C-alpha cells in the first residue's frame, strides 16, 4: 500500500522526494489543491470513500498517516457516493 501511495504522491508532485520522511504539508510538498487531487486518487485506487471530516492536514503529513487514513476509510465501490 505504501509503495502505491508514494507512486500517487510522485504523480501529483514529481518535484519532491516524498521518501525523505518530512511532513508533506508543513514543508509545502502538498497544498490544499494537491490534497484534493490526492483524495480523489486514493478513493479511486483503493475503492474507498474518505470522509470530509478526515480531510485534515495531519492525515496527509506522511505516507504512514495516509496509509492509516486509507485503512480507516469506508471501503465502497467508488460509485456509491455518487447517488
Amino acid at each position, binding site marked *: 500500500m505504501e509503495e502505491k501511495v508514494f507512486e500517487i504522491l510522485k504523480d501529483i508532485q514529481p518535484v519532491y522526494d516524498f521518501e525523505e520522511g518530512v511532513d508533506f504539508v508543513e514543508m*509545502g510538498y502538498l*497544498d*490544499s*489543491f494537491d*490534497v*484534493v*487531487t490526492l*483524495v*480523489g486518487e486514493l478513493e479511486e485506487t483503493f475503492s474507498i*470513500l474518505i*470522509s*470530509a*471530516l478526515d*480531510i*485534515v*492536514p495531519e492525515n496527509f503529513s506522511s505516507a504512514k498517516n495516509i496509509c492509516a487514513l486509507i485503512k480507516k476509510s469506508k471501503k465502497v465501490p467508488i460509485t456509491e*457516493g*455518487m*447517488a
Partner: protein
Amino acid sequence: MGFKEHRIADPQTTPCDLASYTLNYLFHEGYLEKDAVSALVVVAQMADHLTPGNSKVIHGQLGLPRDCFCTDLYENCIGFISGLYTACSLIAASDIEEVVLVTTDAGACYANKLDRNTYPLCGDAAAVTVVSKSADIDDKISFVFHTDGSRREALIVPAGGRRMPYSEETAKVFQDEMGNYRSLNNMHMDGTAVFQFVMEEVPPLVEEACRYAKVAKGDIRYHLTHQPNRFMLEKLADLIDVPRSILFNNIVENFGNSSTVTIPVNIAFNLGERLLTERPLVCYSAFGAGLSLAAGVDRLGKLDFCKFLEHPGEGTIAYTAS
C-alpha cells in the same frame, strides 16, 4: 476539482453593467415594468464606484422612478441569501410589495492568475430575482445566519480598504508558503481552513434551518448551495447525508464561482425550466468570507421566467432584441 471553463467580464464591463443589461432585458420583454419598480436591493462585493453605491448607479443607468427605494449590501459568498432576507424584511416591514434583488459580481480581477488556489475558481455574473408579497400568510422563507469573524483571515483580500490602502508595497508579488504567487492586493484563501469550516458548520446549519422551517430534511427536494468547487460539494452532500444528485455541484466547472451570484446561477442552470411549472421545497445554503454561513428553506417555483442571458460585453447596458 472539476474545472472546464469560467466566465470573466471584460474590463469595460462592471457589476452594474451586467445588472442593468439584465434588467433592461426584463423591461423589454415585459417581465418587469420599469415605472413600477419600488425597491432595488443590490448585493455585490465589487462596486462601480466607492461612492455612490451600485444601487444608485443602476438607478441612474436605467432611469428608475425617483421614489424607488435603493440600497446596497456589501456581501460575499452568502450574499444571495442575505439579499433575499433583506428583500423579505422590506416586504414584511413596509408597504413595499415587490423588491428587485440584484446580485452581481465582476470581481475576478481580485484573483492573481498565478494563484492556482483562487484564479481557476473565479467567475463573473449578475442575477435579478424578483421577490413579491404573497397572499398566503404561510408562504415564507425560513432563514438562519451564523458568523465567526474571528476566522476572517482565512478568506481575505488584505489590501485596498482603509486598514491597508493600496500601495506599491501591497502590489508586490511574493511566493506564499504554498508556492503560489500573489500580492496583498489579491484574494488570499486558506483552503484547508475554509474546507474544514464548511464541513464542520454547514451540515448542522442545514439541520437547524429545517428545524426552524418545521420540515424534515428528507422533504427537501433540492439543496441549492453556493458553489466553491465540485469536490467540496460532493463531500458536503455526503456529510449532510443527502444524495449527491440533489445537491448540484456543476456550476464552478461551467461558469466559475461568482460569489453572491452562484445560487441564482445554480437555480437557472439546473432547475430553470422546471421552476416554471413546479414548486419544490428547497434549502439554500451558502458559506464563505467572514467566515459566515447562511441557509434558507423555501418553496421555490411557479416562476414567470428563469433563464440565462449572455452579456454582449464592452459595458453594454441596452438590450436590443436580435
